[in-house]
């Protein structure tokens, strides 16, 4: 395949993923705390505490410290004349080419964290697969969505 796609996601994406990781970490911490309480209350084997504590810790290391940076570095996208070009992955890198004519619909969505940073996720669906461009600036996402819709339609009409 040709050169990797040109554009990167918005820089805030890392922060967003980290916040999401932190939230997950906290939820896991609460679960771990309740498990610890139960272990001492009912005198279960102590190694359960170790497992319960290590899960959130691994989550913290992976999803807050390591993964967001690599993910950001790897993820690239480009909207070309006739196709959408996406690169994603952590260790295994996948590059995908989706021709405009095969696109069935384009969705944008925004959760509370993304909203705070004024970002959006664009989802591109074909008849059998879906591809996501996470964390684009809202205006760009809207523009992209409309752009794809128009181009897909134009090519369809030809």
């Amino acid at each position, binding site marked *: *395949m*040709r050169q990797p796609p040109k554009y990167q996601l918005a820089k805030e994406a890392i922060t967003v993923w980290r916040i999401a990781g932190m939230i997950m970490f906290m939820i896991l911490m609460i679960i771990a705390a309740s498990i610890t309480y139960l272990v001492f209350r009912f005198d279960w084997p102590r190694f359960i505490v170790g497992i319960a504590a290590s899960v959130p810790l691994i989550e913290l290391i992976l999803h807050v410290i390591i993964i967001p940076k690599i993910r950001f570095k790897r993820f690239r996208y480009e909207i070309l004349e*006739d*196709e959408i070009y996406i690169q994603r*992955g952590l*260790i*295994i*890198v*996948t*590059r*995908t*080419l*989706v*021709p405009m004519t*095969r696109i069935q619909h384009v969705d944008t969505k925004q959760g509370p964290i993304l909203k705070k940073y004024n970002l959006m996720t664009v989802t591109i669906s*074909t*008849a*059998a*697969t879906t*591809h996501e461009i996470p964390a684009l600036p809202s205006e760009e996402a809207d523009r992209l969505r409309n752009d794809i819709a128009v181009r897909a339609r134009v090519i369809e009409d030809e």
Partner: protein
Amino acid sequence: MNEQHKLHPLAILLFFLKLMKDSVWLVISGVIFIGSSDINTLLPERFHTSSVIFVLIFILVIILVFAGISWFKWHRFRYMIHPDALQITQGIIVRHDRTIKTKNIHSMHVNQHIFHQVFNLANLKIETAGSDVNVDGELKAIDLELARRLKYQFTNDLPLGNVTDFTPSHLMEGDKKDDWHSSIYRLLAAGVTTGRIGTLLAIAAVIPPELSNYLPEDIYQASESWVLKQSMVVWIVLVSVYITMMIAVGVISFLLKYGQFSLHREGDYLVVKHGLIEKKETQLHINRIQAITFKQNLFRMPFGWSGCYVDFAGGEFDAKSEGRLLLYPLLRRREVNTFLKQCVPEYDMKDVKLERTDAISYFYRMVRFSLLILIPSIIGFFFYVRWWLILAVVSLLIGRGVFYYLEYRLKGYAIREGVLRLDYLHRFSRSQTLVKRKHMLELNRIETPAMKKLQVCHLKFAVMNNFIGQHFKFSWISVLQMKIITEWFTKK
């Protein structure tokens, strides 16, 4: 022919059977409920009887109600044939009147169940873009000849109205010359080598130990002690009889499903007919074909026999098939090209040279595999070493090497205009896939850091079908070849 028709009364039976089939759990739970609860307490003394009677009464009532519903359904069902549409009116209380325009019909299927064959009738299924059975039309029992004619008219873009003044037998004879009929020997060969035999053998291995749970203790023990007393020869004979029986079961079920297999092309449609008990006739528009795959499993590889499958999209009732249809059960190697030319000339790939993939990745994988096996086993050998363990490791490595060589020899791709041909090994089956550019939904290139160094990558793409899509992976090709395929894919 602009008049209302009723279905053949056989439809009552078919409606009834379908109702029974759909509500069998309801009936069973009803029976269990009635059988287990004490109804006598609710009744005056002189009606008291055993619960078996109540269950029988319940079943009788259910049968009567279902029979009544079926009769009503049949009684209220009308269909009309217009020149450019089919109109179906049905419903017991709420009347549904549906007109299906011919141009919206995707395909028609003529199926003959065993009941149909007795009265020379057929079931006509009409598929439209919606894949919902309730939205599409189905004529449960109509004259076979009428069904055939309707289908023929539809296939050849003729007005449906003329079905009466039409002589099908003569015209249909003309198409027969390119028919692909499967002889019984071919079907037998296909049945013996089908992948299901492996599954059946696995089941065969599981059954004997399971029997101890179901058979009465003494019988099982008596037969077990009898078996243990026999000589080696008797054992071998018994085991081979058992295995032969399982294979026979597989072959017979295959024959029942695919017996009298025939395939021919009518205009833009492929018509597949098969089945001994239930005769199935499937009609597939060429444009609905997303990919064609020739598959040779391990049993068939030495003979060069392959089964032909198509992935298709749009309107199919059968959820089990998941959008893959057996187009032809068994083809010899030299027949494949003729087959393509006659049945799907759009995909004909004769005279195109197959491009090999790079050998480097196989060396890499062999080294990777060897290290993965050798390092732990060498460490292990420091503590415990036996000659047969070493032999096992060595034969594992040799086996893997042979496998990689086979894969390398089989793998290749070719491009001709809008069609891509991929030859590869997939789950120990030699596969050849033909796919048109316009049906490939996307193109993925996958690589790991090590692959980047070696300048190789995987190619993955998907085509549409009725389920989640069919994904194809063509792995370990060089970056250069990937580039060629990408350029072909993005070319207008």
